[in-house]
């Protein structure tokens, strides 16, 4: 089954809506609560990244009895140095974003900790595509 959610850039009020919606789906599908938590934590971090850094994007979530496959696709500035972005504490968030309690530089590392597979493709000036895979068994 596939679910798609649009993510608005800059609107922190709505950051978390896609995660909450997909979380409800996973609960209905009787996915183990602790696995749901891992999926939702990484999805939420990805969602906040799109809100904070991109010009807008979408999340495509696919679920089958074996795994959950999530793609977070945005148009935006892209990530110049993915390796650096993966380091805990490294952040390019603006002071405005930090004031709101985001941008601690834990987003991507936290996603990596919670996902079974995390792939990042990014093109500077164009956008970023993050792929998250979590196994259900």
């Amino acid at each position, binding site marked *: *089954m596939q679910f798609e959610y649009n993510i608005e850039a800059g609107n922190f009020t709505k950051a*978390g809506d896609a*995660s*909450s919606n997909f*979380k*409800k*789906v996973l*609960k*209905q*599908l*009787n*996915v183990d*609560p*602790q696995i*749901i*938590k891992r999926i*939702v*934590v990484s999805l*939420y971090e990805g969602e906040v990244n799109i809100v904070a850094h991109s010009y807008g994007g979408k999340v495509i979530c696919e*679920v089958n*009895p074996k795994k959950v496959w999530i793609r977070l696709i945005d148009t935006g500035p892209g990530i110049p140095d993915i390796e650096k972005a993966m380091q805990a504490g490294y952040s390019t968030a603006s002071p405005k974003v930090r004031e709101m*309690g985001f941008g*601690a530089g834990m987003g991507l590392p*936290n996603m990596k900790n919670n996902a079974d597979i995390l792939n990042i493709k990014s093109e500077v000036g164009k956008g970023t595509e993050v792929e998250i895979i979590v196994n*259900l068994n």
Partner: protein
Amino acid sequence: MEQKHFHHALKIDHDICIGCAHCMMKCPTEAIRIRGGKSILYPNRCVDCGECFKACPVSAIFIDQDDYNQIKNYTHRIALVPSVFFGQFPKEIPHEEIVNAIKANGFTDIYEVETSVELLSEKINAYVKKAEKKPVISSFCPAIVRLIQVKFPSLTENILLLKPPLDTTALYCRKKLVDNHINPAEIGVFYITPCAAKIAAVKSPVGEDFSVITGVINMDTLYNKVYGYIKNNKNQFAEVEWNDQLTEKAFRWMLTNGEAKHIQGRCLAIDEIHNVIRFLERVENDELKDVDYLELRACDQSCTGGVLLTNNRFLTTERMKTTKINTQPDTSAGNINEYRSYLEKRIVLQEVKPRSMLSLDENMEEAMRKLELSSQALSILPLVDCGICGSPSCQAFATDIAQGEAELQQCIFIQKDKEIKGQISPKKSVEIMKKIWGKEKFNPDIEKS
């Protein structure tokens, strides 16, 4: 293994119920449906918060309590009274007089529920300090513990695995009597409850094998007896020996922020079940960083807003906040500190198991099929959440359809559409409505009015 059935203190009297759906629309876990003109409760979704009890205009929802007279089956009849009971009386009535009136109504010993708070708060602080799962969520409010089990299963690991003050104090006063050579069979411990959830917790405790509490008396029942006694015996107040045992911290523990205020670290206090639900959504997404402790209570104003309280919650809260308390923690012999090591071994709760109500089916492929069905149904529903179909919202109705518990034509919008297309007759349409709302609501004399 998830436990399937739970004791519920909230009951619906179908002889009184008029099927008005007020309760269904208020239930925060969508546990009520209307069928045959009556409210039906889905027991596995109910968390005993009492919202339906407050909403019912005809008092058809009642809270099942133990027979008051059963206290007489015991020689030693202990009333476990929460501080909020005292908070309901006008300030002019001294606590001694209230205690005297409780004794006049059959109890031999009176213990304040919060007697164990000083000891417990120390234990909670130690627990939070070394807890791996943060935020630790208080185990104080049983409606919240159940809410987490059914709606936020991944957060069951965050629940504080220490017994609430009620259970701890019950253990203490029972043990104290037994140590005084009293036959345990002669001891009856009765809890005076401010809400339904506490009853449910006593009757089917979460994270414990059994409860040390013998029975439960609704607070309004005792309040009426006690206040009546005080009113009718104005001039014959017998002096009873009573010293307030509770410190200020203990006396106000059940108020909002009563707990959180005394736990070290970053703590938040949230009351009212809808507020709690919205907040837990965020906790579940891991949106909160560095929060150590959450005090969550199902009732607005916490226990002073309990459904079994007689007086206004704001006035009770104000009274409890302004009552002067000078009691210092009692370290003398014979009090709870003497039982510290006995209690420490017994106040640990077992792991709290999730029992998700949201899962459509245990088998994921079957659950997917049902999710597909409910999404299809939802896409053609009007999304006005009118409740005419007998379900509390279009979303809940769509799920009911997928579960085979409702039919699409119960929706009034779809019904009208089918009628106009000649797919169902007006007679059939009325029959569908009667099945949901009962025959009585269709008055054949309607033309006359």
